[in-house]
């Protein structure tokens, strides 16, 4: 039940955040600090998510899972080769699954 409330709350919040941008006064974005933070924060958050998802089990312990790290590395290589989005995802999943099949 609590989970449902959090989900509904998150949905409402996400929608209002989108709407706020469409409706906000333009001068808000002109503040240099707001602007600098806003432009860069997605990169910071996403990089942090990548690191945490790769090197932890989602709990409070850092873990090294060779299959998962291998999968993410495969995705990185695919991106360096400018592979299409789906190829990148397939490379990650196939590598991780393959390494697990090999017992890693």
């Amino acid at each position, binding site marked *: 039940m609590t989970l449902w409330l959090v989900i509904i709350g998150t949905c409402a919040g996400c929608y209002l955040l*989108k709407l706020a941008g469409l409706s906000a006064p333009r001068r808000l974005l002109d503040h240099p600090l707001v*602007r600098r933070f806003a432009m*860069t924060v997605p*990169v*910071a958050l996403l990089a942090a998510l990548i690191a*945490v998802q790769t*090197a932890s089990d989602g709990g409070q312990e850092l873990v090294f899972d060779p299959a*998962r790290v291998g999968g993410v590395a495969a995705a*990185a290589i695919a991106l360096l080769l400018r592979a*299409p989005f789906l190829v990148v995802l397939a490379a990650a999943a196939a590598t991780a699954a393959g390494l697990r099949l090999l017992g890693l």
Partner: protein
Amino acid sequence: MPRNFVQDRAGTTPLASVDVTTSTASLPPPVRDGLGMGTAVGLSGTAFGAAAVTAGLSVPQACVLSLLAFTGASQFALVGVVAGGGGLAAGAAGALLLGARNTLYGLRMADLLHWRGPRRLLVAHGIIDETAAGALAQPTAAWARTSFVTVFTSLYLTWNLTTLVGALATERIGDTDAFGLDAMSAAVFLALVAARLRDNRRERLVAVLAAAIALAAVPFAPPGVPVLLAAAAALIVPSGGPAGSPGDDEGGDGGAPGSDGGDADPGRGEVRA
């Protein structure tokens, strides 16, 4: 973000490297590009559906998130925290902080798309990474609007359909790690930031710092919080300052004072917000 689909190919056909274009070659460019990006990204809803059910959400809960939150990174962040047994408040906070960038896209889209009145309420729901990237990459306002509608529609339909498929399949399969879906979830984020990391030295620095902050915080902070703390990296790294050497492509050096992270550089078709 698969922004490389729609940029960096001046003089050539955008999306030339994407297989879905073959059957849609006669469509106008914003429609063709939009369908390609929307469908390709939308398919990763499978990974979300799988991740959500693995984390302990029910199939309806996964579907409600995709229908109503409809912003991938936030959705992944929420279920990621739930999966780790983290506090729900931290999960929601992480999701909202990630969703906050849509506010900034919205500011841009308001200028670009000029949709007013009740229609704005629907348009707002579609403001995410991919629709913003697609719209900002177009040369005219009309194409921007076409791109927005195309990406929104194709991505919304695909994302929700594949969320359902992924959630249902996972409910039956059980252990999704065997299929490498845990690595795929990180790969989604990696693909989203790849274009920015390739082009921008300062953002590479921010990314490395953010990853380090998050990892250092993992043993000490409840799940979800390390990612929030990492947002500080966006403030710590100076823009076009000492870190911005002459090779820095941020455009700050010798440029207008307001040019750091300002308007999208039309030469690169980059979305900066």
